[in-house]
């Protein structure tokens, strides 16, 4: 009905463009409908009538209701349960942000090493195969967030601020003695999150990650457990060294920026150091890392390697980019599959082996990214039942 121009009262009055124009005229729509009447003088009468009817039906008695609006709102407020004081939280948020910035600039680092003495296998929840970002509180209750990206900030008192708008009270928020309560964050494939820990440390979590951390840090060291990939900006505290534990290695830091990748399904885990220095421990071996160095652990051969790398390739995901330096399409699609939660199939193994160098913009739709790949390499793809099938051109 709306494809051909409306020709009578009925068609005009049910035409959504016409209705939009009457309620919200824009210069373009104004011009369109003016010239429409000039071109169709025979329906001018119907046109004016339709406009009058729509306009009159749309008119609202706002002014006379203002008192009612206030009155009803007040009555609703008096019947609701008391809420948390938002103001207090916003103040706290500002402080946390300031700390993170200062740490980023300070760059003061230590290296040391200690054994992992928390049994994360006992704490870790099962049922991590979730489709939305999931926060597991210390009492085991779960909060689910449907956004693509969500940020979580912990205060010293055990309050969690979500996306700077919403507050959750951690049931066991207040630290008692040396006993620590743990929260867990599960990031499914296709999503990412930023986590500000109670000490101000910023943890950007990549897709398909699971992190376990104390609500507030007590004792002699700060420890978290990671499966997946995270970029960390650790806040400086010489008294309480910071550890990242993974299944294969433990990374110890005091104030630095680095990327840890430890996906369970990948054959290799690695740490890439951006800034400062860290020490990694695997198989009772301690390895010191310098800036721009990558430490790789190959599970299949139980071996570690150290190499100087272009850190951008490893950390660009946190800014929505993917740098590829002579990287195979197989490896690239493996990362893309996590980032976009897609499944890739290669009909021809040679397509998987082709390498690419360049920058992919992950903030765009995955089809755009795949188009870029197909533009730069002699491959093509089709989508079948939610799977991406690659083949040689």
């Amino acid at each position, binding site marked *: 009905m709306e494809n051909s121009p409306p020709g009578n009262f*009925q068609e005009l009055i049910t035409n959504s463009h016409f209705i939009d124009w009457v309620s919200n005229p824009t210069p373009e729509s104004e011009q369109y409908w003016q010239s429409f009447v000039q071109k169709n003088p025979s329906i001018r009468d119907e046109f004016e*009538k339709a406009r009058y009817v*729509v306009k*009159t*039906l749309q008119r609202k008695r706002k002014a006379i209701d203002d008192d009612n*609006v206030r009155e009803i709102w007040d*009555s609703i407020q008096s*019947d609701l349960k008391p809420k948390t004081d938002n103001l207090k939280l916003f103040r706290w948020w500002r402080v946390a942000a300031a700390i993170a910035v200062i740490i980023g600039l300070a760059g003061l680092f230590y290296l040391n090493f200690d054994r992992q003495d928390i049994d994360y296998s006992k704490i870790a929840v099962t049922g991590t195969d979730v489709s939305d970002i999931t926060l597991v509180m210390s009492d085991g209750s779960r909060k689910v*967030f449907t956004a693509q990206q969500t940020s979580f900030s912990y205060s010293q008192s055990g309050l969690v601020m979500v*996306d700077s708008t919403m507050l959750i009270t951690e049931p066991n928020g207040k630290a008692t003695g040396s006993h620590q309560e743990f929260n867990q964050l599960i990031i499914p494939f296709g999503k990412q999150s930023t986590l500000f820990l109670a000490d101000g440390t910023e943890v950007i979590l990549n897709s398909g990650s699971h992190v376990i951390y104390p609500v507030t840090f007590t004792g002699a060291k700060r420890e978290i457990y990671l499966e997946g990939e995270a970029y960390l900006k650790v806040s400086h505290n010489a008294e309480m060294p910071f550890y990242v534990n993974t299944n294969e290695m433990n990374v110890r830091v005091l104030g630095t920026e680095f990327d840890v990748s430890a996906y369970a399904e990948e054959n290799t885990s690695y740490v890439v150091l951006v800034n400062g220095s860290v020490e990694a421990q695997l198989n009772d071996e301690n390895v010191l890392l310098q800036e721009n160095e990558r430490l790789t652990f190959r599970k299949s051969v139980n071996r570690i390697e150290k190499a100087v790398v272009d850190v951008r390739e490893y950390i660009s995901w946190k800014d929505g980019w993917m740098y590829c330096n002579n990287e195979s399409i197989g490896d690239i699609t493996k990362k893309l599959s996590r980032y976009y939660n897609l499944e890739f199939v290669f009909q021809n193994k040679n397509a998987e082996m082709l390498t690419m160098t360049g920058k992919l913009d992950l903030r765009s739709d995955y089809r755009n990214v795949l188009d870029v790949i197909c533009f730069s390499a002699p491959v093509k793809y089709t989508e079948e039942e939610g799977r991406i099938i690659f083949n040689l051109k």
Partner: protein
Amino acid sequence: MVKHSVTLPDKKLWENFLLGDSTSFKLIYERSIYDLLAYGRSFCQDQEVVKDSIHDLFVELHNTRSRLGKTDKILPYLMVILKRILVKKLRKKETNRLLDIERLPFMLDICEDETDSDGDDNFVRLKKALDELTPRQREAIHLKYSAGLSYEELSKVMNLNYQTSRNLIFRAIQKLRVILKENQVVVLLLVSLDRAKRK
């Protein structure tokens, strides 16, 4: 009440509200309250009953938010609940114990544009034309034009399927047109008389 420059899409606003954000709750109220008042008043002349129902609606919304589902259009969602609460309240009144939702009266209370002095005749004619529609036709017209719902949203609020709601609007418009057409003769007549007088 403060007027917000509103850019946050309904879907996101609703999500924030479900997560417990009190600002979003207030924003939802501010965005929908005028339409809810107008819609409620169309069913029920008693203003206090309408206000009570809206109060109940928002308190219920707030207290059950952890169990509510997603929506990307808030107003029709609230209209459905308001209608339910209102009907329940009306049924409690003795005479309406067996109130059938299909037979619920619907008043379409249009208001005149005071600056438009020529509109008087048109206004009276339109008002008369609307009076000749069935209550459900008036409700559909109200939802479509005053509340600005799409056919899809309208069909949800009125509990009809998509095609039925389109037909409802179509027949209502058809009727309006016929009635307005009949009156057109009168208008032309009046105009010519006027001209004759001037001569």
